[in-house]
């Protein structure tokens, strides 16, 4: 008996297999589209969130730039901290620090006789 002639409860096996494959494929397409749609929705949500975060970051960057504006920092440091540009005599290069370091002589412990 040929394979194509095999029957199950009056239905040819080849037709049943083809129908099963078709159902699997339909289900596959449905699932793929559904999952893809869900993923797209998730991606869109994350993208929107990224965009909003980027906007927030840019706003914060602009705010930082505003807060760090030289004129503002200088005004605050003068008004509240009494600071001023250092004079040349108070500047020292890192490599010259050793020359200016004053070594304190070790203190002697005074002992009573």
């Amino acid at each position, binding site marked *: 008996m*040929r394979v*194509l*002639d095999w029957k199950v409860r009056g239905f*040819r096996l*080849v*037709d049943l297999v*083809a*129908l099963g*494959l*078709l159902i699997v*494929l*339909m289900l*596959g*397409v449905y699932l*793929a*589209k559904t*999952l*893809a749609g869900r*993923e*797209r929705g998730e*991606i*869109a949500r*994350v*993208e929107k969130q990224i*965009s909003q975060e*980027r*906007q927030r970051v*840019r*706003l914060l*960057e*602009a*705010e*930082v*730039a*505003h807060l*760090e*504006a*030289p*004129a503002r*920092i*200088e005004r605050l440091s003068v008004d509240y901290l009494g600071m001023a*540009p250092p004079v*040349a*005599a108070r*500047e020292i*290069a890192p490599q010259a620090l050793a020359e200016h370091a004053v070594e304190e002589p070790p203190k002697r412990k005074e002992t009573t006789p």
Partner: protein
Amino acid sequence: MSSEPLGYDAPPRWGWIASPMWAIEQAYGRARNKDAAVDHARVRIFFVLAIFFAAFAFLAFGATRAALFSDAGDRGAYKPLYDTARADLVDRNGRLLAADLLHYGLYVDPREIWNADEIRKALRTELPQIEAHRLERALAGKKRAYVLGSLTPAVRNRVNALGLPGVTFEPEEHRAYPLGATAAHVIGFADPAGVGLAGAERAFNDEIRARSDSGKPVALSIDLRIQGALEDELERAAIKHQVKGAVGIVTNVQTGEILGLASYPDFDPNDPGASSADAQVNRAGSTVFEMGSTFKAFTVAAGLDAGVATPQSRFDATKPFKLGYRTIHDYHAARKVLTLVEVFQHSSNIGTAKLGVALGPERLRHYFDVLGLTKPAKVELVESARPLTPKVWNEDAVASTSFGHGINVTPLALSRAMGALLNGGRTIPLTLLKRDPGYRPDGVQALSPQTSQQMLYMMRANVTGGSGGSADAPGLRVGGKTGTGEKYDPSIRGYSHSKQVSSFAAVFPTSGAPSDTRYFVLILMDEPKPTKDTYGYSTGGWTAAPAAGRTIDRIAPFLGVARDMTPFDPFASPETAKVEDGR
């Protein structure tokens, strides 16, 4: 199955498909012989199933491919929403100067409003800046209308919280300048349509717009730390001397990069309309001045380069110099024979005019040409103005221009020409764009490196023993030339003795080879007033030089210029005593 003979002579390479097809044909043939009607229906069902199978296989493949290999979410870089988008502007260290930020536009739809008075009252209370006529027109209209733009997210949230019907918002990009007035003339500003109107925003408009897609900023040459110190010192001096205007410029003479540029008064580019037109003028590039004695540096350099004089050449300044119908005097007459170094230190008009005459009109003009003083300053700013130069270059023009009269140039043009005197003799373009380390632009060899070296020494000598003493900063080997030009007053049809342009053109460090990296600093004040501590003087040495010295003192650490306390005074002699007037 394969042992059965085929019904036709198929080529051997098609045997793998021909055999099963032939077997199917035979199977249907046998079935047809048994029950033909049933088999016809089965064949149809089989083919329908096969077609559906193929169609769904194709769809499954497409759907899987779309799900697995879609480019959704693959847009990592921020992409502005609108065509008006502009890239960020940053300083040379990447600090933000200008950026497009998300703002909101307010719209009113009268079709959704049933109580216009309530909306009017609420909006005008919350947004006092709203234009009344625009709001009225929107409320009286028949469709949704734009009312107000550039609203921050915080303001939008505040208005949204009122729950006003018919009031909605749309996102829009808005150019913001977070530093306010800092570096306003360098940065400039752009209009709401995203077109640069002034400063770097206009100069690099195309590049800024092109880069908005990539998200890469445009890096300017300025250093915000230097800019801040320069603006602070300039403003302090400007307020002290109650000037009409002032300019400060810091450049790298080897690269032409502008590290700081300030024009006083300034303005806020976030709202340029709130400032006067005068405040928006970039005096560094768009205003020409008669610089006065600062120009003597060019005449002296030309004399040295042409071989007409050496630093020790002597000039008789014992009496005024008559040239044609003019008699040239020294502001503070030394009344003695001066070496060229002393002419420079005493800022002697007589000595400089005599050097100019020795050079002759043609040669002096040639040097002014190659130094770029007879053309607009080569820099990206469109504000760069044309100079006013003598129509005829004769002896009279020589007499005037040799010490900075009869020729008006912009501070940027002066800075560019001074750079050539101090960088080995190359006239190079100035730039507002950050350049790579080691960058050396193409330029015109206007002077010999030897002349440049001599000018460095002369300018140092002018600070250690001349009119620029108040610009000295400990250990930074500052050199410079003072300048005081009387302004032409149309009301008296002549030069005013009370209205002056005072300046100081400084360089540091003057030590090292001409090709070494060094920096030029210009401080210029328009109509400064004398103060008690300047003993009634308002000349460059008393007004601009101290500001230049303080600026150099503050910016040197940012530029990596170390202090060197080694004495440096190659031309020191008893005759080069410090002059008192500072002219």
